[in-house]
């Protein structure tokens, strides 16, 4: 026993002496692995000159014959292959992974999920592994807001999918997901927030009368940001609910929510040259709105610690009168086993701000294939399967918004046959929002870096650590410094 340990020890030491001596080559090695594409400057200037590098680096994929016809990913024999997958986890996402069993059965492949985490954990995981060249997955989660970070490391998918197959997906999303001619991802479901409100509060005659006499206009689901504030104040003042409204208060979730309020108020984070401009009137108005909600106790006291699951749980428990939430929780909210609000809520379009625009911060959850993957064939088959009509339909049944027209047709047909009026109404609202209000955050590789720098400052404004003006000034300066250090203004 003792000798065994010594042997292991000796082996490890030799291995590590070698490792240490070889370690000095390491910088050179890092330079080689990822390709040459200067992602930052490219996004900043929008230049097309990277086309040439693209064609050389996708050399191995050129040999692949462009597929024709439509595949649901089940038509290949993949016996003996293992497809590894790193993806997002959490209540609304998991159901889809149950269908993987079917894929394994029909193709003979084995699917191994190497990582599951929330949106920010999975981003961290993918980023580290892409950067270090240690991809241990073939299929990776992706998202339109995050994808610009990964462009160097994911397989361009236009060569793997037939035109016919791609035509099934929403053209707007496919277009948004194409960077320099390369399709980054295949969308899984769309992501936009509708105004969820409690019907038992809004339809209560006493509350309606009280509201109208106090505010001078009738009580109805809030259509503007100002109305949101009034109604939040009213409901909390009446003591009928703990919080008027709410939003997730940290990470990109907060920066994104601020973004859509900012856009609704007529502002934006950056101009066309990536100069940060959110310290203007629209920015001040948006920040002041969040600050007022917090200081007057209209949103939860622990807002800066809340993320998606916590806010959803708050609404589910009936603690909140109304708020902006994506459609993915629908089946969960409608389940009386889980939620107090089941059967007692409605959904309307996002509110309008001072700029006369609706909120509509949006994106799409998606899958990509790692460029480093050694069995892209099988990986693509899995992506085809997961985004196929049948699986997408199962996921859409839970409430997530489809990105395929054929699935839309089926869920609309189902909804019109349903006894619950909201089933159909919500889809109409969602379609309206996707058609009219859908906008993504700026699709540049440093969106997440930017939001990570900005959200603590925004928290500082909301918590009153600094004034609105100071905070926005600091936010703009920090953003400029950050992008400057990445060479955006050269």
């Amino acid at each position, binding site marked *: 026993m003792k000798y065994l340990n010594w042997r292991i020890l000796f082996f490890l030491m030799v291995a590590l002496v070698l*490792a240490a001596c070889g370690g000095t080559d390491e910088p050179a090695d890092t330079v080689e692995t990822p390709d040459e594409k200067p992602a930052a400057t490219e996004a900043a200037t929008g230049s097309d000159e990277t086309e040439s590098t693209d064609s050389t680096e996708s050399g191995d994929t050129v040999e692949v014959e462009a597929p024709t016809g439509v595949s649901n990913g089940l038509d290949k024999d993949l016996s003996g292959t293992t497809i590894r997958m790193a993806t997002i986890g959490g209540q609304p996402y998991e159901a889809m992974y149950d269908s993987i069993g079917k894929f394994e059965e029909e193709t003979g492949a084995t699917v191994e999920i190497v990582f599951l985490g929330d949106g920010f954990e999975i981003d961290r995981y993918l*980023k580290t592994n892409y*950067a270090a060249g240690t991809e241990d997955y073939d299929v990776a989660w992706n998202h339109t807001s995050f994808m610009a970070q990964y462009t160097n490391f994911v397989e361009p998918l236009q060569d793997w999918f037939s035109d016919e197959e791609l035509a099934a997906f929403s053209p707007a999303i496919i277009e948004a997901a194409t960077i320099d001619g390369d399709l980054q991802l295949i969308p899984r479901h769309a992501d936009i927030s509708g105004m969820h409100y409690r019907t038992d509060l809004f339809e209560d005659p006493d509350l309606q009368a009280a509201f109208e006499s106090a505010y001078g206009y009738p009580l109805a689901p809030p259509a503007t940001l100002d109305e949101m504030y009034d109604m939040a104040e009213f409901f909390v003042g009446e003591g009928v609910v703990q919080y008027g409204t709410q939003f997730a208060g940290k990470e990109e979730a907060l920066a994104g929510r601020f973004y859509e309020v900012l856009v609704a108020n007529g502002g934006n984070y950056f101009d066309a040259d990536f100069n940060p401009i959110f310290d203007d009137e629209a920015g001040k108005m948006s920040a002041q709105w969040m600050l007022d909600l917090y200081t007057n106790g209209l949103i939860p006291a622990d*807002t800066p610690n809340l993320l998606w699951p916590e806010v959803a749980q708050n609404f589910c428990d009936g*603690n909140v009168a109304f708020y902006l939430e994506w459609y993915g929780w629908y089946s969960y909210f409608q389940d009386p086993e889980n939620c107090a609000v089941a059967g007692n809520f409605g959904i309307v379009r996002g509110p309008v701000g001072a700029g006369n625009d609706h909120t509509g911060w949006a994106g799409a959850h998606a899958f990509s294939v790692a460029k480093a993957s050694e069995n892209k064939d099988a990986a693509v088959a899995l992506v085809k399967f997961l985004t196929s009509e049948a699986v997408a339909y199962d996921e859409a049944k839970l409430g997530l918004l489809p990105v395929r027209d054929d699935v839309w047709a089926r869920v609309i047909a189902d909804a019109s046959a349903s006894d619950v009026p909201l089933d159909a109404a919500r889809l109409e609202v969602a379609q309206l929002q996707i058609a009219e209000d859908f906008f993504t955050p700026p699709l540049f590789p440093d969106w997440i870096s930017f939001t*990570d*720098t900005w959200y603590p400052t925004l928290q*500082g404004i909301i*918590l009153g*650590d600094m004034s609105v003006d100071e905070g926005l000034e600091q936010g703009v300066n920090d953003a400029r410094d950050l992008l400057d250090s990445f060479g955006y203004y050269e």
Partner: protein
Amino acid sequence: MTTTSAKQGEKANQAGVVSAPRHSSSRTTWFPFILIAPSLIVIALVVIYPVLYSIYVSFTPFHLLRPEQTFVFTTEKMWNNYIKLWNDDVFWKSLRNTVIFLAVTVNVSYLVALALSQLLARVSRGQSVMRTLLMVPMMFAPVLVGFQFAWFFNATVGLVNNALFSLGLMQEPKAWLVDQPTGMIAIMLATIWMNIPMLTIILLAGTLSLPQETFEAARVDGASAWQRFKHITMPLIKPFTLIALTVLSLDIARAYDVVRIMTGGGPAHRTEMIWTYTGRLAIRNSQFGLASAMSMVAVVLGVFFTLYLFRQLIKSRVVY
């Protein structure tokens, strides 16, 4: 790495082994180095090499997602990261928070442990039950301590708010981890709770090993309990105190796990510490160069803290 041990060998030849047995041959002077070498090699690989690498990286603008453009060392830009840190308010804030955090947790942990050890030394019954109760926090990984206290102080479902509500002491839920200074206090409480058992056990062992006659004599001479504690117990358990503090200092960065889970340094950098800020920059923001510069500050801080205690320890050993 190999050069390090070779150098050691040279030194050995020059110095010889002072306390070695008289008949020792020249070959045996190598003996202590043979014993130390494996440890040194492992430490060199796992600690010293990465630290040197970090130092190098801290002079480059290395960005994880665009290594080819940024992993470049240029003399005119080598201080950029350090200049950036110098001008970064958040960095100074995190440094201040770290220093306050260390000062408070170390001192309070020590004082509580000292009081607890004096109390336990007088207990006549149920020693082993109490000792087991005392050691319970030792079985919790820092990660668990973090989760557990984050849960207790949670504004909506937390035990603290819940209990205060039920007792009618509170009407509005309090966001302990958001407000100032309760967020910091909560983190400190968790860390202190985690530190106490080890300190108490060492101090208790020290107290129990003291000669009873001295105390009896002092009692007969009319010394009060406080005087006995101050003039007999305290000086005699000094080596134990130093051991306890050194053990604590070696593990101080464990607090990172607790902070990361309870608040992640937020909100609005209110509980930002040098460790969380470094982690945020390195991994979330991919700014590895800047993060390395900051981690150097963390290394220096940790090294000085430990160095100070070790000097004290070695001094007290000479006295004994």
